[in-house]
């Protein structure tokens, strides 16, 4: 179990900056997920950590050593690729053992390690097949197996599940969690799928346009997004947003004049009245106000339509010209049909500076 330090890494392709100063410390045994939209530079960062791509500036430390310019094969790490990258003409057994054969590991040791990884991943019956004779999920297992044979201390994954169907993806997620728990390996995992990030990560690093926006536990990232981007990117259905200004008495006022009392909100610093802000509330936190204020400037929502999700339904609302959503109990029956006043706990909400996007 080894830690990884990413120190001020920058990278451009030609004039196009891809990574703009990435700092990230990964502790031994952590499962860190790099989450971000397509093209934000996740794979580039992972390749830089692996040494498969040169960096422009910054440093990479692995196990406390400076590895910025070390050869990929000398970095004590293994990697699983999106396209699996199995060697097509070799059997599964040869795929697992080839790297060790190259490095002159004794035959008996190769056999032993291949066996133990095959047992761990339950791929023993597949050992004599060629990659072309395997299903996608089996190929993925073999690819993970090849990585584990190489190193159980640090494993990098680049969207390893994105070529699998939804059911298999769910199974493999469980599998990966189990592996991480069993082996305690340090894992860095790239994905743009937030469900994967939420279920696998001990910490999530959300990346946008070559910058780390937030590094936190999945729950923190969801509950207290550090930036407007994170709030928007994480969560499905998306977070409800409303633009407005902050007033002197810690009240939020929307463009149409509706106000929300934010005295229960934990401001990071003393708010400056007059700041243009964006208010964000997760659909889970919105409900029908129990004690409607019935003031003239209260929020008012008009139900648009519902989506049944089985145990509960998602109610879509029209609120101040914005599309909001909230969960309603399908069985409880209390689904509003006319305009009503929505409520939420200010402590559950998020408030962002409109110009910088930073959480207030």
């Amino acid at each position, binding site marked *: 179990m080894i830690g990884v330090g990413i120190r001020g890494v920058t990278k451009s392709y030609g004039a196009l900056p891809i990574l703009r100063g990435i700092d990230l410390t990964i502790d031994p045994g952590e499962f860190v997920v790099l989450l971000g939209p397509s093209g934000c530079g996740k794979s580039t960062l992972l390749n830089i950590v692996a040494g498969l791509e040169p960096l422009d500036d910054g440093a990479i430390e692995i196990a406390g050593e400076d590895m910025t310019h070390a050869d990929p094969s000398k970095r004590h790490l293994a990697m699983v690729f999106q396209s699996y*990258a199995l060697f097509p003409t*070799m059997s599964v057994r040869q795929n697992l053992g080839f790297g060790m054969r190259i490095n002159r590991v004794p035959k008996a040791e190769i056999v032993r390690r291949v066996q133990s990884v095959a047992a761990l991943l339950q791929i023993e019956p597949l050992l004599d097949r060629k990659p072309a004779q395997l299903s996608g999920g089996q190929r993925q297992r073999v690819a993970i197996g090849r990585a584990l044979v190489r190193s159980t201390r640090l494993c990098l994954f680049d969207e390893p599940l994105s070529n699998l169907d939804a059911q298999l993806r769910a199974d493999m997620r469980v599998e990966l969690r189990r592996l991480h728990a069993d082996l305690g390996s340090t894992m860095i995992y790239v994905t743009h799928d937030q469900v994967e990030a939420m279920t696998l990560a001990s910490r999530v690093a959300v990346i946008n346009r070559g910058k780390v926006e937030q590094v936190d536990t999945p729950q923190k990232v969801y509950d207290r997004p550090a930036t407007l981007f994170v709030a928007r990117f994480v969560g499905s259905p998306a977070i409800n947003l409303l633009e407005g200004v902050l007033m002197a008495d810690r009240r939020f006022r929307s463009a149409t004049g509706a106000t929300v009392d934010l005295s229960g909100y934990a401001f990071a610093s003393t708010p400056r009245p007059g700041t243009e802000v964006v208010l964000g509330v997760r659909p889970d936190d919105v409900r029908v106000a129990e004690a409607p204020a019935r003031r003239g400037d209260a929020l008012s929502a008009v139900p648009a339509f519902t989506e049944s999700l089985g145990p509960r339904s998602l109610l879509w609302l029209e609120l101040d010209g914005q599309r909001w959503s909230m969960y309603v109990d399908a069985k409880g029956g209390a689904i509003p049909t006319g305009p009503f006043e929505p409520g939420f706990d200010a402590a559950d909400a998020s408030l962002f500076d409109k110009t910088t996007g930073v959480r207030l």
Partner: protein
Amino acid sequence: MTRSKAPARGLSDMPESGFRPDLVAIGFFLVVALVFYGSLLWTGYLSLTNSRLIPSYEIVGFDQFARLVATPRWRTACVNLVILGAFGIAGSLALGTLLAILLDRDVRAEGLLRSIFLHPLALSLVITGLAWRWLLDPVTGIQSVLRGLGWSSFHLDWLADPDTAIYALVVASIWRSSGLVMIIMLAGLRGVDTDIWKAIRLEGIPLWRAYAQIVLPSLKLTIASCIILLMADVVRSYDLVIALTKGGPGFSTDLPAKFAVDHFFGRANIGLASAASVVILGFVASLLVPYLLIQRKGRA
């Protein structure tokens, strides 16, 4: 006429204007079938007769084939075909693959390599042959240049020696064909998944082992296609022989195709020439066997 105002009605209009594209196509195919397969059958028939200057229709069975096998010149031609095939194909494949690997690894000399090895593809075989004739000629070629530079003992007259002349053909044929192999293999190499290369680098696999044990084996269908194209090239080497050696010195660089042509037109022995042609057809047909095998394997 009101009809002319109607929008164009495509093929359905055609019969009335008297033009039948289908008939034209059928006619075309008939001509091809008649000329091509007709000649084929005709030659096959002639090979069983005792024709000499003019075709005769007296069947003599396989006499012509027996005579063919007994002709030393024919045997030399067949041996030459094997030499040209084995060394030419192996050489072109090796050189072409090596060049493709160099190009794929972004060697600087890409432009130079392209012009040396791709231009022959665009040139007529006759020009290729002539170029090599000059290069290998003791008076005008490499020998005189190197001697002029002071290496007075340098000796290169392959074309003059009956034992080595065929290898001059091999060299010319390698040069002519390796460009083709190069572009086909380059396309194959460029198609190799970049993740595979990353995995190779991560495992610390040396480059030559990566090519020998991972990359080239995964291109075996591409390599097989190259071999088939190269075999076809060898069988069609007639022009190269004509331009480079005209079959000489003596008959030392004769090829079956040249043998057949000579006997048809030069020596007025149509029966023997037809028998030779049928044997050549057999060679060509046997090329299809590996092709069909690959196709079947590709589908399985």
